[in-house]
């Protein structure tokens, strides 16, 4: 990696990002500036480090820089020191002088975060390769890390069909939940007839507890823009939209400034990289409705209509935005593209399992020691994720299962944890890969209560267009509520199963079609917990408050 202006386009006016001729400092202190650490106070740490550096009168040859998400959000604010590769955890503003004084000498032991642990060593980073290593607000740092080399290669050395072929060969599948082959989707849009075509990046991320896409956009926004531009070139689109929820202000501002920088330096806009290809990207804000992540609802929302889905076919690839062929891809899917084009499909296809290639980013949450953002190769087992990377369950509790795919997914019981993480095996277990939410559940949780939580979410996020989802989810929620209160009978359980089947098979869009999944999977693996509530009027985990007088009345 050389910091020459590799791939730099012709019409750049120099911008403000160049490192100039300043020699690199001996040390670089990076402070995580992603939302997790910012909420833990990393802005103050950053200011304190900068002040301390000024006061020290440059006696230490050092730079203080921001960085994207460093992964172990639970231990934030995180600070790293390069080139030593020392990491510090839970740093406060008062620790700034100590860290600066330690440069070149002994590390600050009380803050030290060892990085030779499985949490770091078991991960494999493609999408997150730059996280924590570059400042997301500076294009030059992305360029120094081979940024936009993929776009440059695609534009100057490959034809659109070759790019699509490369993506197809890589075996990349959509990371937004469905797992549809990305190359095939690109090919469909490329073949579709239309004067105008669009590329849409789906950054709606409505899954509760998931924050993969937000982190990618906050930490490495140019990677997503590069992926979109390559997609535009391959499919014949010259306009892109990023649909992002308004609740992500930091990601939005980083994205906007990244677009401005890329346009100024000729990586977006007219004549990208000095070639005849033009591509502009606009940001569209969503109001944070889960259903607006569904691609047809998302398209309605960008068009300025009410965000409700419509029946497919026709798929957006044929008729999308304003009736034109439209490619809708998830943030993480697009973030994989630059690496695949740069390093080749064979490299990508060598990672993962037979039908699931590459890596997957998960937001690890729930009852696990190391919560945070992780990227693992496909095919790793759930057990390795929870016990090696996640560091196991806190306290003396035992793992009961893990929920993947959020409200559309299912709960996988502890005795299936040796199954590999790939699209097919998760589906076989009654769950889905989903967009990357992973919630670990231990014996302090009641599975009926977990199912009820997700059903409440689906009920309040249903758009109300089709009756199965609108009325079905609310009836399902009421039934689950009745069970957790100890008021349900076995007839109610039968009705619950019948309604689940109906909502799954008759709803209009994926929200309703997948809403019963958490109930169905907990019924499959934890039926005894349902029966305890219904027959014995007892909650085995002691979560649900079942009133005894109800029992007396019965």
């Amino acid at each position, binding site marked *: 990696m050389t910091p020459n202006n590799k791939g730099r386009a012709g019409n750049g006016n120099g911008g403000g990002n160049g490192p100039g001729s300043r020699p690199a400092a001996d040390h670089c202190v990076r402070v995580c500036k992603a939302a997790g650490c910012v909420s833990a106070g990393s802005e103050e740490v950053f200011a304190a480090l900068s002040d301390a550096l000024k006061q020290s009168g440059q006696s230490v040859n050092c730079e203080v820089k921001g960085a994207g998400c460093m992964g172990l959000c639970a231990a934030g604010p995180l600070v790293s020191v390069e080139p030593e590769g020392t990491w510090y955890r839970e740093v406060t503003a008062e620790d700034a002088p100590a860290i600066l004084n330690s440069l070149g000498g002994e590390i600050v032991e009380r803050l030290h975060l060892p990085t030779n642990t499985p949490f770091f060593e078991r991960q494999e980073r493609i999408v997150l390769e730059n996280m924590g290593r570059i400042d997301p607000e500076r294009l030059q740092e992305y360029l120094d890390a081979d940024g936009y080399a993929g776009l440059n290669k695609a534009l100057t050395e490959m034809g659109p069909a070759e790019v699509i072929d490369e993506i197809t060969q890589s075996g990349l599948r959509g990371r937004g939940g469905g797992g549809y082959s990305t190359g095939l989707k690109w090919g469909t849009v490329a073949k579709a007839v239309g004067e105008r075509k669009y590329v849409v990046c789906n950054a709606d991320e409505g899954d509760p507890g998931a924050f993969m896409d937000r982190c990618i956009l906050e930490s490495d926004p140019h990677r997503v823009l590069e992926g979109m531009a390559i997609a535009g070139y391959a499919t014949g689109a010259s306009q892109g939209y990023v649909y992002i929820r308004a609740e992500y202000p930091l990601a939005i501002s980083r994205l906007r400034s990244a677009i401005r920088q890329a346009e100024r330096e000729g990586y977006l806009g007219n004549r990208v990289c000095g070639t005849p290809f033009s591509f502009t990207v606009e940001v569209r804000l969503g109001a944070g409705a889960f259903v607006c992540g569904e691609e047809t609802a998302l398209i309605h929302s960008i068009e300025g209509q*009410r965000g409700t889905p419509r029946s497919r076919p026709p798929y957006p690839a044929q008729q999308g935005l304003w009736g034109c062929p439209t490619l809708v891809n998830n943030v993480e899917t697009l973030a994989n593209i630059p690496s695949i084009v740069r390093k080749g499909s064979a490299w990508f296809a060598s990672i993962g399992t037979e039908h699931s290639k590459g890596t997957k980013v998960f937001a690890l949450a729930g009852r696990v020691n190391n919560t945070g953002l992780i990227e693992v190769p496909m095919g790793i087992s759930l057990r390795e994720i929870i016990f090696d990377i996640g560091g196991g369950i806190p306290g003396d509790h035992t793992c009961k299962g893990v929920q993947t795919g959020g409200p559309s997914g299912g709960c996988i019981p502890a005795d299936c944890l040796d199954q590999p993480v790939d699209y097919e095996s998760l589906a076989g277990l009654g769950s889905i890969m989903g967009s990357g939410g992973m919630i670990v559940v231990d014996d302090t949780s009641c599975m009926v209560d977990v199912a009820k939580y997700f059903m409440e979410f689906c009920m309040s996020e249903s758009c109300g*267009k089709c009756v199965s989802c*609108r009325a079905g989810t609310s009836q399902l929620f009421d039934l689950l509520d009745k069970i957790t209160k100890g008021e349900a009978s076995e007839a109610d359980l039968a009705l619950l199963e019948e309604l689940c089947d109906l909502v799954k098979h008759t709803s209009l869009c994926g929200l309703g079609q997948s809403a019963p999944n958490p109930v169905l999977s907990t019924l499959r693996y934890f039926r005894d917990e349902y029966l305890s509530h219904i027959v014995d009027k007892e909650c085995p985990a002691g979560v649900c408050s079942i009133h005894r007088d109800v029992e007396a009345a019965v």
Partner: protein
Amino acid sequence: MSVLQEVKTLTINGREASARGDETILEIAREHGIFVPTLCHLHGLSPVGGCRLCLVEVEGANRLLPACTTRVGEGMVIRTDSDRLKGYRRMILELFLSERNHTCSVCVSNGYCELQSLSRDAGITHVRVPYRYQRYTVDASHELFVADQNRCIMCTRCVRVCEEVEGAHTWDVQGRGIEARLISDMNESWGDSDSCTSCGKCVQVCPTGALSEKGKSVAEMSKRKQFLPYLTLMRDKWK
């Protein structure tokens, strides 16, 4: 000739049939005298696929497809009357009946209601899920019409006829999920609406007693939908 106008051959309930490529499964079924229940569909308005009653089985498709929005395809094998579909339709009707208040005996549209007749045909004698009885105030502010959301099934025919045929866009939907409901203009009372032309099309296309004419008492509100095929015919003819 456009691809959509090519003739397709298909099988529906075991009978062979032919269709133009731009026809829907519902149109073909009706042409062949096959009854498929519908509530949100109305010929002349854009299809939305919201009531889910018209779902049919298509061989090779991984899920049930709404007949009202699905175009025919070459060699399609369609079933509209399996026991599974009948079971789903029954439960969907029960969900409709459970949502708001459908006490027929005191309804202006008793005897003329599409929800009522479909439920009767499906042999529904009771509803297995609990009634929710959401409560809405009746809007009688319009000089000619009454809107009683307690009878509304969210088919959105009124929204579409007002926007697509009358061009007024007085009606729209507010809120999400079970809270979704109709509003006139910017959630004002109907009588205060500036956009409403008082044409009454919404009232005539409403399948239940949710929209009715003033002065009609119980079981008096029959609807006149004949205007819509006529307008559509004229519109398509002069397009």
